[in-house]
């Protein structure tokens, strides 16, 4: 049985802005799926629906045999701009992943259960930040903040990890490092992951399987061997003339 099942997903904003048009695919348990596509293709809308942040106009999504109808603590998200709380340490940021398991008072006083505390430190260890656990995230680099964001997602102990262009704002070295940590964390935990990415080379390096979305429709679904230059052109350009025009320019 697939870990994630997306069936005939359509999302229309307003009266006629179609963000997703009859999108269907399945993701196997432990698979690292990368969603590729140009800006405005519908990648973020897809991830927001998978995370229960947006309701689809039509269709359904099942994660772990249960339909998504709203936010779920077993689905974690890594955001493009990390959204860490800069006034808190990396450790306390990672612990916010355990908020759904703690009462308000416990979370305010950092009285989390022992296993949650250990999980936060292990997650920071996984992303190479154990020694910086007590450092304020406000003084960290963009790549480090994003790694804290990944640690926070891991502490949720999710069944599905989503990442919305997690390295879009990072330099190539930091981007590779962050993706490497995310990939190894997912593999260690056999965690199903869906990440939207812009950079095809990074996608190739870290993804198991790739889906291409253009104008809200799935135009590509395949593995490394299928993701040829022609396939990339098909994902990013309307026609061959467009692709050639860009190359000539």
């Amino acid at each position, binding site marked *: 049985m697939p870990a994630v099942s997306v069936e005939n997903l359509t999302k229309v904003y307003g009266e006629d*802005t179609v963000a997703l048009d009859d999108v269907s695919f399945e993701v196997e348990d432990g698979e690292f799926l990368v969603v590729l596509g140009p800006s405005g293709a519908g990648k973020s809308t897809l991830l927001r629906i998978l995370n229960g942040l947006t309701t689809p106009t039509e269709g359904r999504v099942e994660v772990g045999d249960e339909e998504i109808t709203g936010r779920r603590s077993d689905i974690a998200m890594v955001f493009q701009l990390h959204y860490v709380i800069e006034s808190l340490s990396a*450790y306390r940021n990672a612990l916010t992943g355990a908020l759904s398991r703690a009462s308000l008072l416990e979370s305010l006083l*950092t009285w989390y259960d022992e296993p949650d505390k250990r999980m936060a430190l*292990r997650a920071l260890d996984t992303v190479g930040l*154990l*020694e910086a*656990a*007590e450092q304020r995230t406000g003084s960290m680099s963009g790549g480090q903040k994003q790694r804290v964001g990944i640690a926070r997602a891991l502490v949720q102990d999710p069944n599905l990890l989503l990442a919305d262009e997690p390295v879009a704002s990072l330099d190539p070295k930091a981007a590779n490092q962050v993706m490497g940590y995310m990939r190894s964390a997912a593999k260690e935990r056999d965690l199903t992951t869906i990440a939207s990415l812009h950079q095809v080379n990074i996608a190739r390096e870290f993804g198991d399987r790739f889906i291409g979305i253009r104008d809200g429709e799935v135009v590509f679904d395949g593995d490394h061997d299928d993701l040829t230059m022609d396939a990339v052109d098909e994902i990013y350009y309307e026609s061959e003339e467009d692709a050639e025009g860009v190359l000539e320019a």
Partner: protein
Amino acid sequence: MSTEESHVDRMLERIEHHQRVRRILIAVGLLVLALVTAAGMTFIGFRLANLVREFPGFIESIWDFMPPNFVDFTLYSKEHYQYGQVAKLEDFYQPILMSFSNPSTFWTSIVEQEGLIGLSVITIAIGFCGTVLGFPLALIFGVLGSERVTPFPFNFLFRGAMSTIRAIPALVWVLVYIPLTGLGPVGALMAVATDTVGNLGRLFTDELEEIDDGPIEAVGSTGASGSQRVFFGMLSQVFTSFIAWTLYILEINVRIAVSLGVVGAGGIGQYINNRFFGFLEFSRGMAGILMVIVIVLSVEMVSSRLRARLRPSEHEQMTFFDHLKDLLTTSKWLGTGSGKRD
């Protein structure tokens, strides 16, 4: 135990130790805060025993306010509603119903500046017009007070002017303006406008200090002049926040207008003062207090919905006519609009 686990254990122990120290320091800090507060309260003569002793009398006096008497709701109710010596529940709703059965009285009350309706409009007008009159100077002082626009120490001329204005409360400004306008709504309007320059200007300055350098550099790199950099690189970034802060100050100004009325500057505040201290008509004074609550809540509701509509995602790429059409969308006023795209 693996090396990784021992690292985690060591780190957990270190963090727990630091947290214990922090908790002790927080507890000591809270204790000091409690002691200083207790000393302050004792200094000004606060005695809990006195409050407990007077409490039953206080509750009894509150009952004198009930039920609120809305006989002064409009000119019509003022002239036609008869109420007796003993307060009745009808005094609360009958004058309101009576006024609604004769709607033209609302307009007459506003024009004549009579009744709770007319006086409420005076209060709202003082708050609104004071905000509008104060806005241009607040904008000029606020922008010039920012170190990003005017180099240090010259920006302190404007910052200093705003701090001086803020140091004097509106309640004092209205007294300062007495030789110019007398004690009344015009003086209150001037006081609110002056107060707006100090408060709104300061918010504008602070907002400008927080903006991104990127867009300013980008505009500068096009060869734009200094003033173009200010308008396109800086003010364009803070336009919506400036409007949001202005609406927030409008809310505060309407409250200030009520307080200015209490010291004799007209409007609903003066009505409340007269009922309580002039004529000892507490139930009619209570009706005035309820009107203040309605005014403040209405202004806050309209202002907060307007501010919600200023969020960029809600009206990107909309023309002026789209905005007008959009005003009819009830879901947006109620804050139940849809999310954003990709």
